[in-house]
């Protein structure tokens, strides 16, 4: 944790469309040069937040400010029209100008800054090289593939060298393979150009693999802001635990050092002194598949419904009659059991996270 002043400060921003609350008291800070992800299911307000930063939506209340170029005084962004904000947005649909070729699309933002012809030409050529678009420079967007369009949109935004680059689901339109390549390329670009990135995504793996910090959003509210590891190991609430990673949730009641659910009582680690309605989060890597005898001392007993072998490791999905979620255990090596086998499940009480359920 550093104490430097954040680049972007969002404080208490709310926005409603009629009855739909798109943003509900959102506050977050974005640090200089970080790769920040806004993660949440579709409709949780991610686009609305980006559009508010870029100036295309007016929050009902709250403030958004960015550090000035001298890095000392914050500038009130909400007072500036979109074209005066030192922020660039890469639109979810790319929004490339169909009547301009790739080079003109990229040049457009620099021309608006009134730079010299030479500087514009030089910067455009540079960014064409960085994004691998040199041979597409005189082609119209209609003649490009999805991945190429995405790169033009990115080039058009980064060529402006904004303090803050906002990317709205930049990779969602791409197929799996191209997406993986692009994730790496985005990371590389961020290092190369030294711009602060805010990436919106609904794909938790994407956020986890790319971002320095992630804000998880749900129904217009920020649920938790943390680095990927913390988010996974210490989810702040049930929504985050469920949304991040592939854990199974046990619903029950907590008391000082035990958790009761489905007629059984399990030992548990309860550092927050939760009591009443609670959820126990079981991550696949924490769950062990055991025998069913009393010497094995299983915590739950169920039937294997699926096994997967991934080469180096495998996963076993177990259906426990009372539990809604299928419980998944992962372990190194090949599967040890077969579909249909009766097995026991156990876990280390220290590793399973206990979360309060708010009624």
């Amino acid at each position, binding site marked *: 944790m550093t104490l430097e002043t954040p680049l972007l400060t969002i404080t208490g921003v709310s926005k409603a469309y009629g009855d739909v609350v798109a943003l509900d008291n959102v506050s977050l800070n974005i640090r200089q040069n970080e790769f920040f992800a806004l993660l949440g299911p579709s409709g949780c307000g991610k686009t609305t937040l980006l559009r508010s930063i*870029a*100036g*295309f939506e007016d929050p009902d209340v709250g403030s958004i400010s960015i550090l000035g170029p001298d890095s000392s005084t914050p500038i009130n962004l909400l007072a500036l*029209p*979109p*074209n005066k904000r030192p*922020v*660039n*947005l890469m*639109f979810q*649909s790319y*929004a*490339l*100008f*169909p*009547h301009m*070729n790739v080079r003109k699309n990229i040049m*457009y*933002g620099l021309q*608006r*800054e009134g730079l010299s012809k030479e500087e514009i030409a030089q910067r455009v050529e540079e960014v064409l090289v960085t994004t691998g678009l040199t041979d597409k420079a005189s082609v*119209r*967007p*209609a*003649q490009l593939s999805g991945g190429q369009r995405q790169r033009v949109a990115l080039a*058009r935004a980064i060529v*402006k060298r904004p303090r803050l680059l906002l990317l709205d689901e930049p990779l969602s339109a791409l197929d799996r393979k191209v997406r993986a390549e692009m994730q790496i390329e985005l990371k590389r670009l961020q290092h190369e150009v030294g711009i602060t990135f805010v990436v919106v995504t609904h794909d938790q793996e994407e956020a986890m693999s790319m971002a320095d910090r992630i804000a998880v959003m749900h129904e217009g509210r920020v649920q938790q802001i943390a680095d990927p590891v913390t988010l996974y190991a210490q989810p702040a609430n049930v929504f985050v635990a469920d949304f991040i990673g592939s854990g199974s949730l046990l619903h029950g009641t907590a008391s000082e050092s035990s958790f009761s659910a489905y007629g059984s009582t399990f030992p548990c680690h309860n550092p927050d002194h939760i009591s009443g309605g609670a959820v126990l989060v079981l991550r696949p890597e924490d769950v062990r598949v055991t025998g069913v005898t009393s010497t094995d001392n299983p915590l739950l007993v169920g039937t294997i419904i699926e096994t997967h072998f991934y080469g180096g490791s495998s996963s076993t999905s177990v259906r426990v009659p009372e539990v809604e979620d299928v419980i998944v255990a992962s372990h190194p090596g090949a599967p040890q059991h077969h579909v249909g086998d009766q097995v026991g499940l156990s876990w280390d009480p220290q590793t399973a996270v206990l979360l309060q359920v708010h009624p």
Partner: protein
Amino acid sequence: MSTTTPTSGRGAARRRALIGRTVFAGPGLIYITAFMAIPVLLVLVYSFFQRGRFGGIVWEFTFDNYVRAFEPVYIQVFSNSLVIAGTTTLLALLIGYPTAYAIAKLPARWRTVALVMVVLPFWTNFLIRTYAWIILLNSEGPINSSLVDAGIISAPIGLLYTPGAVIVGLVYAYLPLVILPVYASIERLDRQLVEAAGNLGASRARAFFDVTLPLTLPGVMIGAIFVFVPSLGNFVVPELLGGGKTVMVGNLIRDQFLEARDWPFGAVLALFVISLLVILFAMQAAISRRINGTGKRMSSRA
């Protein structure tokens, strides 16, 4: 043997699609062929023959009708008409574009109301609407009297029976034909493109001229053609509001068929207007393709 079986997958599907398309397109195609293509063909044929004494055609081949169309008096009528139709088009665009833009920015339920109001005049008789302009424009009419009352002019001025009156009447008649296609193109324009321009540093005016205007140009051109061509061919407005002093191509064509009984010459004049229409539409299509960068779409899809 199998090559002739019609059940072989793709061939049959294609045939079914073709039959389907013919069934749906059929009535429209027949209608257009019967009432559009055949008359145009007749006009084309007439234009190469000689006039009958009391109308009709004498079947003796000649190019005279075409030669005659280039006589100075007709050139004058043509250039007159082009100026009047051109001015009408320009004015209609200058009024129609902002109107269409404003309508497209209205909340959804007001948009429909506004569009109905735009086409409302079409539900009353064209002649009646044009006569109303006579009342408005004549020397005792409300325009002249309010100008006199306001002290802007001392005596009524001649508004009626001028080319200006003809233009006013034509703009009024065809304004909806500009507003509708322009509205459609503004409505269809991806709002995010304008936002993207703003995000890249363009002021609102700049974004309008760099993005909105070029991308709505195809609609603008359709609107322009919809006004220009019928203005050229209109003969009611020049007669009623121009007092017969302003002769336009439309009047000339009408006179050839109904008064001079010179069908072949009328046919030549009509063909000029039709050719102009075809050329304008071809230009519109070419420019739209260029603007959207879809000119080579077929090859890039391969």
